[in-house]
């Protein structure tokens, strides 16, 4: 009985905060748009029989008819993938540097990585608008230093979205990689060198494979939220940046087409389930290897 209660609590949590909202969204995705409150039909007020009869998959069919949607999904996938790679390339050297730093420095360095979380995410993204705009700090600095003569257009481009995503998510990449690298026994690198590896070769053959779990965990922690990212593309990206999170928002709040927006959300969730399952399996395998 006690065991049942222990298992039941987290499941109740999942049920209330994930499954029920998902079912509501899924139900809306099967509905039709209506000029009413709420803005869709049918509702349970219509009675159970007509309610079920009125549900259909036409919103999902609609998503395939307009190429905006699959283009937005593909573009989101591409942006999420490339920004994950870029975050990895930025984050790995930072994590490596932190793990190699003298022991007494490490808590401070860790603090510096976590520090941005103390400010609102939204404010930090707005700050990037101030940096990247035509008259922003970056352009002013480049003009002052004489590197460019015309201000660069960065804000409202996909480049700004990449900068925003890499900046925002880099701590999620650094922390798991740092955790893996910090545990790495230095004598393994010496052993690799002793057996004929150059420094670089030892890095590829020993350091990278042994931080693999950190790289995988960090990549998923960046990829999954980046795929559905809405704030960064809508504030930093221009009209040319197509991301599914933005499309979703526009369907909900500009078109007030809740059923189509819900269908978009359901598909996004289905796409995300694959990397989430892969991520879980990686975590599990890691736990088993250590246990």
């Amino acid at each position: 009985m006690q065991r049942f209660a222990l298992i039941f609590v987290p499941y109740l949590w999942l049920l209330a905060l994930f499954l029920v909202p998902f079912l509501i969204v899924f139900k809306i995705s099967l509905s039709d748009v209506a000029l009413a409150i709420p803005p869709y039909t049918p509702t349970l007020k219509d009675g159970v029989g007509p309610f079920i009869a009125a549900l259909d998959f036409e919103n999902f069919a609609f998503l395939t008819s307009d190429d905006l949607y699959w283009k937005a999904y593909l573009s989101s996938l591409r942006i999420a993938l490339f920004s994950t790679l870029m975050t990895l390339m930025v984050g790995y050297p930072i994590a490596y540097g932190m793990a190699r730093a003298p022991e007494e420095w490490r808590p401070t360095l860790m603090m510096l990585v976590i520090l941005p979380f103390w400010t609102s995410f939204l404010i930090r993204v707005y700050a990037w608008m101030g940096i990247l705009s035509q008259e922003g700090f970056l352009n002013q600095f480049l003009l002052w230093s004489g590197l460019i003569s015309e201000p660069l257009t960065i804000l409202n481009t996909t480049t700004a979205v990449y900068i925003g995503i890499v900046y925002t998510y880099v701590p999620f990449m650094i922390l798991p990689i740092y955790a893996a690298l910090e545990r790495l026994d230095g004598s393994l690198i010496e052993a690799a060198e002793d057996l004929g590896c150059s420094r670089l070769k030892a890095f590829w053959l020993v350091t990278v494979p042994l931080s693999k779990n950190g790289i995988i965990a960090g990549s998923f922690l960046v990829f999954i939220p980046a795929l559905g990212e809405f704030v960064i593309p809508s504030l930093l990206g221009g009209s040319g940046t197509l991301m599914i999170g933005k499309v979703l928002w526009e369907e909900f709040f500009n078109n007030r087409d809740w059923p189509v927006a819900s269908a978009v959300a359901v598909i996004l969730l289905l796409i995300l389930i694959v990397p989430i399952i892969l991520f879980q399996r990686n975590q599990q395998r890691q736990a088993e290897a250590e246990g």
Partner: protein
Amino acid sequence: MNQAVFTPWDDPSAKPLIRFKGVTKRFGEFVAIDNLTLDIYEREFFALLGPSGCGKTTMMRMLAGFETATEGSIELSGQDIGPVPPNKRAVNMMFQSYALFPHLTVYDNIAFGLRRGTMPREQIDARVSEMLKLTRLEKFARRKPHQISGGQRQRVALARSLAKAPKLLLLDEPLGALDAKLRQATQFELMDIQEKTGTTFVIVTHDQEEAMTVASRVAVMDEGRVMQVATPERIYEAPNSVYVADFIGDVNILKGTATANGTGSYAVTWDEGQRPVTAISDTVFSEGQACFLAIRPEKIAINAERPTDADNAIQGKILDIAYLGNLSTYHVALPGGQVIKAQAANTRRVSRRSFTWEDTVWISWTATAGVLLDQ
């Protein structure tokens, strides 16, 4: 018999494999190695022995290439290896922690070094199989390091460091992580493998018994200096200083002054109220020179009656008995208060032992039993 023949260090024409020439290593202010000169010969099993912090690990790391000498030079087969990076040296090391790659199988660990060269695949395969056979690991080739026991891991580390057939193999406390029984068995295994492969081994250890068992020569180190380099027998029987005598095994040190009482024979006055003891020594002492007489406990006999034929005999009282199973160490208090340790084999069972606490006994030793030291 082989042992008796193999003494390249006594042969002035023999070329050493490794030559430390006036090597000094400093870490900031700290002097880890102090102007060290040492030759190690091919096919030797050389032990660096000393307490922690004596510089033995630093010496090994300089041989491997992980540290460079601050002054002086290190030669390997006549070539200065100072500027050669670790991956270019014909030297391999077996790490104290074994440093096995956890993401690779036993087979891949052993093949790791071979794959860095240009050796063709079949040859690598053959060499790894040979190593697996040598270390009796054939059954575990496909396992990962965390799936095998500590003793097996130790053998994988050995196989991996031997796979490239290095000129010199360095072993950093190789048996430190093994339990006593396994350690003894592995010591003999190591000697066996060393003989089979003919590789020069340099072993670092703080365990004197281990050094004595495996090594052809032992260097006793202290604070960055080599105190004595000699065969295990000579280190034990003829230490050149009180430090070495005291570091290796158990010893009684009598501090006194020497007076010649014959050719190469000295009377050592070591305590007022005691008769001087006689000791034979090759070292020449001047009249009244301060000296130390070092005598191993097992060279001191213990008797109920005064033995008639002993050169030195003193009466005392048994203070303590340390029972070691095969041996017992008797702590005998002399009238002056000093305690001398004497060791006797337990040829009879304990219940029938001839001496017990508070017994008055005679301890005795011959003139050649001790070593007379000047420092």
